[in-house]
């Protein structure tokens, strides 16, 4: 077996324990893989930093831990991760895939990344993405598009496209993505891996370069539900540096997954699964629809109770999302004015006035980012605020209520992640509205701040992966991971 062919953290740790593998050998193997297969998944490779981390761990393993991986103190001991380039790592260039932050080196590390590194994880590099996390195909990167891991004419999905493609192509073991309206779940679905977004406020956003602050969440992208649960539980918790984090207990979710998978698919018995009637719209690809129908049937045959539910405000979701997200983005991106942040191009140095200077700096934004800044600036401007942002916030509350009443009747809600499988490079990039509709199934849970996960369940005729979207009530990650674990079992995924 190739050295980087591990599917689970526990397999790596067993290899460390048996003395057949060291962290340094493992890290090397990923760098070999990423150089041999040019997917453009990495913006910055942190080879020296990663090898230094691995060397220390290899040394510790032999001396301090006497050949036994310290799983309690360092549950991610020696696990090589890709970090989406929207998260800061002290001293490592962090670009947000934008020309405007081309040379930005942050002086601090994001809380979530710090927690993972404290748990023994190794940062292999900073992953490509849509510029400022704005996009669904990873074609909006100033560093070029990311290529789909198995179909080179396809997009990997976005905005966490580099994070998804690299995990699927074994260029890193697992990765961090960020999700504002589907940016973890959609690329996970397109690339055939697990992608999870926790409850809004679970994981500190400190060090996550903001796109839309009231929606942004960090989440894990992994090859198994168990590892998603482990990464998520390590990153979760209240952070004094992020006032929007929640003071809520964090359980051992990975242990819940193992327990569920040991018990087997009988766990479906009595699970109430909601199927929103609004989600099975026209335009949904028949193969996607069939895959979802078939998994629902399988759940039912294992004893799950399938309940048709209604989320009546779903039709407003995309519009609401685009008002909220662009408004917040226009504000969050104000700081890239070239005074402190924003590459000062030669043209800007010749500027004749402060206004001219700002114009020249902001020419460095890509067209999708500019579009959203302009839309957001308009939506927040005096006289329009009530009609747009305030109204959108009200609709958002209604959507939250929709979910709350649905969860009176069901434990989890299922839907497709995306109406289609991975589309072709360039297929939608000229049509923003079509692109925006890719997120139609993932946006409602984002607006409601709910935990959700994408689990691969099938492939279409061309071999492109299809994911199932599961949504749980607020702070019910335990339930979400349990349901995800059962689905994984059902489709013949990993068992322990």
């Amino acid at each position, binding site marked *: 077996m190739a050295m980087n062919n591990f599917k689970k953290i526990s397999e790596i740790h067993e290899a460390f324990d048996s003395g057949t593998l060291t962290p340094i050998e493992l890290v090397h193997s990923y760098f070999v893989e990423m150089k041999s297969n040019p997917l453009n998944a990495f913006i910055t490779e942190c080879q020296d930093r990663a090898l230094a981390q691995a060397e220390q761990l290899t040394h510790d393993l032999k001396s301090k831990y006497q050949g036994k991986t310290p799983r309690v103190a360092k549950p991610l001991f020696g696990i090589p991760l890709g970090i989406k380039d929207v*998260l*800061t790592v002290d001293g490592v260039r*962090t670009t*947000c895939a934008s020309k405007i*932050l081309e040379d*930005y080196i*942050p*002086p*601090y590390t*994001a809380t979530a990344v710090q927690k993972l590194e404290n748990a023994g994880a190794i940062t292999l590099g900073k992953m490509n993405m849509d510029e400022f996390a704005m996009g669904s195909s990873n074609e909006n990167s100033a560093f070029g598009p990311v290529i789909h891991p198995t179909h080179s004419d396809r997009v990997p999905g976005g905005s966490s496209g580099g994070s998804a493609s690299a995990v699927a192509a074994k260029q890193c073991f697992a990765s961090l993505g960020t999700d504002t309206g589907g940016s973890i779940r959609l690329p996970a679905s397109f690339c055939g891996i697990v992608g999870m977004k926790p409850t809004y406020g679970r994981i500190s*956003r*400190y*060090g*996550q*370069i*903001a796109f*839309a*602050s*009231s929606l942004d969440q960090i989440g894990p992208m992994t090859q198994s539900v168990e590892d998603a649960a482990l990464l998520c539980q390590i990153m979760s918790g209240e952070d*004094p*540096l*992020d*006032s*929007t984090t929640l003071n809520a207990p964090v359980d051992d979710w990975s242990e819940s997954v193992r327990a569920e998978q040991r018990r087997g698919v009988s766990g479906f018995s009595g699970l109430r699964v909601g199927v929103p009637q609004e989600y099975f719209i026209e335009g949904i690809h028949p193969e996607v629809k069939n895959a979802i129908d078939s998994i629902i049937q399988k759940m039912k045959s294992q004893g799950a109770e399938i309940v048709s539910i209604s989320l009546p405000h779903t039709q407003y979701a995309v519009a609401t999302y685009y008002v909220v997200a662009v*408004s*917040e983005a*226009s*504000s969050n*991106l*104000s*700081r*890239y*004015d070239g*005074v*402190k*942040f924003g590459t000062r191009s030669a043209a800007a140095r010749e500027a004749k006035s*402060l206004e001219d200077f*700002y114009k020249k700096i902001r020419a460095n934004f890509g067209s999708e980012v500019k579009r959203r800044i302009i839309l957001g*600036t308009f939506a*927040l*401007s*005096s006289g329009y*605020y009530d009609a747009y*942002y305030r109204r959108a916030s009200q609709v958002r509350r209604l959507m939250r209520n929709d979910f709350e009443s649905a969860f009176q009747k069901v434990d989890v809600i299922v839907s497709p992640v995306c109406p289609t499988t991975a589309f072709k490079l360039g297929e939608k990039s000229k049509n923003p509205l079509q692109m925006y509709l890719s997120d139609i199934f993932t946006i409602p849970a984002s607006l409601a701040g709910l935990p959700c996960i994408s689990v691969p369940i099938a492939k279409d005729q061309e071999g492109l992966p299809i994911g199932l979207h599961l949504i749980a009530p607020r702070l019910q990650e335990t339930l979400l991971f349990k349901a995800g674990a059962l689905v994984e079992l059902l489709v013949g995924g990993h068992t322990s």
Partner: protein
Amino acid sequence: MNAFQLYGMNVGPDTEWETVIGLEVHVQLATESKIFSQARARLSAGGSVADEMPNANTTPVCAGHPGTLPSLNQKAVEYAVRTGLATQCRINLKSQFARKHYFYPDLPKGYQISQLELPLCEAGHLNIEVGAEGSVMRRIGITRIHMEEDAGKNLHRDGFSLVNLNRAGVPLVEVVSEPDLRTAEEAGAYLRKLYGIVTCIGVCDGNLQEGNFRCDANVSVRPKGCTRFGTRTEIKNVNSFRFVEKAIEVEAERQKQVILMGGEIHQETRLYDAQKNQTFSMRSKEEAQDYRYFPDPDLPPLLLGQDWVDGIRRSLPELPDQKRDRYRAEFGLSKYDSSLLSSSGELARFFEAAAIKVDYAKPVSNLLVGEVTRLLNDSGLELAQTKLVPKQFSDLAALILEQAVSVTAAKQVVGVLFKDGGDVPTLVERLGLKQLNDLRSIEPLIEQLIAANPKQVAEYRSGKEKVLGFFVGQVMKATGGKVNPGSLQELMIKKLKE
């Protein structure tokens, strides 16, 4: 000029005008760290902004680094609540921070975190005293007090513009008055009263030169009796009480002249040029910014407990008005002196620390209100920037009461202490200012004077008692003011009548 209509009133050369003023005061809160970051917010005691290393007091948060988030300083909230309670405001147990957007190099995030729809404090007031001897009391409404962060500072030098973010993120409260003020004098009294309150309750260091307390004035004029407001202009960032008064006066006069000449007042922002004593236009309403306010998604609504607010209310110290009344009752000070001493927290604390015995109060008050105030005004310094300490004034008061030094000599001592500091007994000794109470040694001097001025002696003896002052003055001059004036007068009369 012909009469014409303005705001539904007839206006002519004889029209009596009224000025309407509302003030917005930015008060820097004296917390150790900034409002949303751990960076240092306060100057060291007696320090100045100019002494601080530029950009030394910053963290990634107040420098607006990508990915950073604000976390609210509880102390700043406490100080803002104190300010609200001391000005009789209602404290909103739920308030909300909002982003106010504008582009300027000293604003690192491209927006200022402020409050708009749900401010922390609302509907307060304070009382001011105006007119002769402060005989007229007026109640001035406070619309709202909200919290926000200060911006940094730009420095333009040698063709470069430099940005210093030490001030970025220093906590502010903005105190917005109702348009209840009618004269520049009232505006000055309001500012002094508010200044007295915020320095007394310890939420502001009160250093005007360093911008701890800054004022914008909204000014309009209308014919007296008119019930609607005229178009107003806003005069920005005037940082001395005197200049605010002058700026309001000249701006009201300018507006009146514009109207009388048939012109119109435009809503605009104006700046006051103290040297020319006139205001000039900075930007018009058309150029006004659209701040695109919206609730800051990084900061959940600020929720306060009633118990916590009540605890702060209980911890409020005696306020300036209460102090003033107590100084009058307890020490028998005049209304003017007690108002002045209570008008700044620093001065009041200094006074109370010096007046450690009841009978010290009057001499200490006389020196502070007279000599020290004059020296401060002349030098432009703050009390804290001088070498003066309360102990010196207790010592001087004791010496005055013992008649060991004269009041004149005490003033001389204060002058030296102000510049060089020092210990009062040593200084009195060194300057030879110990009061002469035993007048035997100056009898020859007096006799000499009487012999040398027969004309004045004759005048006195013929009943022109005023001439006494001449003789006393001559002796004082010759002795450097050291002689006990009471005893001298007595002796002089005796000698003149001999």
